[in-house]
């Protein structure tokens, strides 16, 4: 497994680039989906309450 991720002397740089990108993109997705879920719930509750 370690061999697979060994890119010579620049391994640190390459892996941190991919790690950073994956991290930021995942964070964006999680935040967006979380907000989406919350508002959907809220809207459903309000519709249920008003009818």
């Amino acid at each position, binding site marked *: 497994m370690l061999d*697979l991720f060994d*890119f*010579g*002397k*620049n*391994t640190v*740089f*390459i892996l*941190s*680039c*991919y790690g*950073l*990108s994956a991290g*930021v*993109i995942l*964070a*964006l*997705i999680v935040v*967006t*989906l979380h*907000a*989406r879920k919350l*508002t*959907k719930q*809220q*809207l459903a509750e*309000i*519709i249920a*309450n*008003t009818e």
Partner: protein
Amino acid sequence: MLSFFANPIRFQSLAKWLVPIFGITAFGLIVSAWILGLFVVPIDYQQGETFRIIYVHVPAVTVASLAYAFLASASFVSFVWRHSLADSAAKAAAPIGAALTFLGLATGALWGKPMWGAYWVWDARLTSTLVMFFLFVGYMAIRGAIRDETTRARIAAITAMIGALNLPIIKFSVDWWSSLHQPASLLRAGGPGIDSSMLYPVLMAIVGYGCLFGWLVLLKMLTELDQRRSLTLMRRAAGRIGSSASVQTTEDPNA
């Protein structure tokens, strides 16, 4: 076409189709491009293993610039036709664009260190990307500072359009500036003769990042539409539907 989808209901039904398509395409393309880039593509004889960073760096920078173009066009539509969907599209695009610009800058710096021995040089491309990052941040900050929705949409749109005017001027001046101050450009894009087996994953990653951007923007816009709907429903339930005027009378109603 623009006015056809400017209707929130029509937009919602279209978005319901587009969201899964964008999401799945983005996931598939980005993951496969990264696997190809990390493990399959043969190393570049000049740049060595560091070349693999191109598969995260180039799509981030490219899509970030496209995001600014999107932000500026949406702002233009919002300013001229005063359409709230265009404003919410611009609002949704800003943080994603800022995050992608940040990724572009950060991976660029991490690429620069092993390649050219410096994390940062005041090269024209880096500098204008940095300015673009500040434009995104400024746009978000000015949105955050205005309470009134109408004023916010208009002032934010003007800000975004000024940035779009300013970016090419900055690019031009920084180009001139670095050609004066730096003896020979350290940065040379790509290197001679990129093999097509290296190029395809880059294109895949760019399209993937683009779909990711579209997916997130649509999700954020749908979220905002739902928020507005809850707000309206809550207000209606509370009985406040804004003030209305009675018919004009010639008598003083208080007399």
